[in-house]
């Protein structure tokens, strides 16, 4: 039986992990390579590296650490942040990324999804969207959630899947950072609309939030989170054992 995936997301700036982390046995808490190894050993099913670097030098550092990570960690790696062109896809895929996540880049150039899917296969293209309710309608936001595009989120995701996106990351800005659980209403609407795997992001505060997610919405394939894993509030193995106890398949 296919298992539900648990995915830690690491924000990387100038080659270092941004959010503070403190684990026993981890020497360099801001080394993406060390942290990736740690998570892989702890049972993470996949890792997302999100590049929040602005400078060209930072970009080079990012690809260096990506190569080093892919040489040491043998679980799927998704890379996002600063992906605006096929050249960006190429740059990170050559360094060992398995999937590439597009967000603002796809909003600016919607044809990027189809072009990348044609060249690298649907399975390689992840469409990530920052979504927030505006007057009761789900809208897509660009530029890290700063700009309301005015686009209907469900229509945007359907269009992305029709163009070749192989997976969808749904990041709810309404629940993100609140730690009161995932945005079940939004996720239910997305699962209803698309047939590709859906990764839930935004709002996880405790193990129970993941149990609620996968129980209420069996069509959700994966749960993604950052700070609760980084700060040790939720340990991935504890989470997965609890999932199995509740009848939710997880790889332990």
């Amino acid at each position, binding site marked *: *039986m296919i298992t539900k995936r648990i995915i830690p997301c690491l924000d990387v700036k100038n080659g270092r992990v941004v959010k503070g982390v403190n684990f026993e046995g981890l020497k360099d808490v801001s080394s993406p390579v060390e942290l990736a190894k740690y998570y892989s050993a702890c049972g993470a099913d996949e890792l997302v590296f999100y590049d929040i670097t602005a400078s060209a030098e930072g970009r080079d550092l990012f690809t260096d650490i990506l190569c080093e990570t892919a040489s040491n960690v043998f679980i799927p790696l998704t890379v996002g942040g600063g992906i605006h062109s096929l050249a960006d896809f190429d740059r990170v895929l050559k360094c060992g990324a398995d999937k590439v996540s597009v967000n603002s880049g796809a909003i600016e150039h919607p044809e990027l999804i189809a072009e990348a899917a044609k060249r690298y296969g649907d399975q390689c293209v992840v469409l990530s969207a920052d979504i927030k309710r505006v007057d009761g309608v789900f809208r897509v936001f660009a530029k890290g959630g700063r700009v309301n595009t005015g686009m209907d989120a469900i229509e945007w995701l359907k269009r992305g899947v029709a163009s070749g996106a192989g997976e969808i990351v749904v990041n709810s800005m309404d629940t993100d950072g609140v730690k009161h659980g995932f945005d079940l209403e939004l996720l239910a609407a997305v699962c209803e609309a698309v047939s590709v795997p859906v990764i839930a992001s935004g709002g996880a505060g405790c193990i129970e939030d993941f149990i609620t997610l996968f129980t209420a919405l069996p069509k959700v394939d994966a749960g993604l989170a950052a700070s609760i894993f980084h700060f040790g509030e939720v340990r991935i193995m504890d989470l997965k054992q609890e999932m199995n106890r509740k009848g939710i398949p997880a790889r332990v």
Partner: protein
Amino acid sequence: MIAILDYGVGNLFSLKSSFAVIGAEAIVTGAADDLRSADKIILPGVGAFEDAAKKLKKSGLDQVLIAEAGKGKPLLGICLGMQLLFERSYEYGEHEGLGLIPGVIRPIADVIPKDYKIPHIGWNALQLARPEAPIFKYTKDGDYVYFVHSYYAADCDASVIAKTEYGAPLTAAAACGNVYGCQFHPEKSGVAGLNILRAFCETEA
């Protein structure tokens, strides 16, 4: 020395790295002579069957693979590389494979329930049909490995060494003498995957 065949299909960075961590010497090569001098061959691949089969044929590497496998050299196909080992595929038409393992490649949509997502993406458990298979020397029934595929090997019961359950039993790994295939990605399947690569490295010609 292990030759990882580079015929312009897919990304071989992780595959090469995974042999490095298990201490096996591996090269990425598109040269026929390297395949001939290698102890073992890896046939990787992602993407469409037709395109990959054409690339192998155009370069003449298909005949080299068939000849080397015929001499008893261990050959491991991964993902699309596994599918290419079979007789033919029905992915967008009908296309000829290498014919090293009896069987054909069909859409998983033919056998899985309608409400299951395609592709089959994620970690799924191996059900070992032939636990004694050499590449499973370090593998336990129930080990999880990472799959990404929309087609599967069918009509190959005699060669199936492991299945996985996705609403229907799907071929996860096959073997025919010295020719092996994994539908999943051992280079992306953590320790369980590295164990399979290690066991392949230890197989005898």
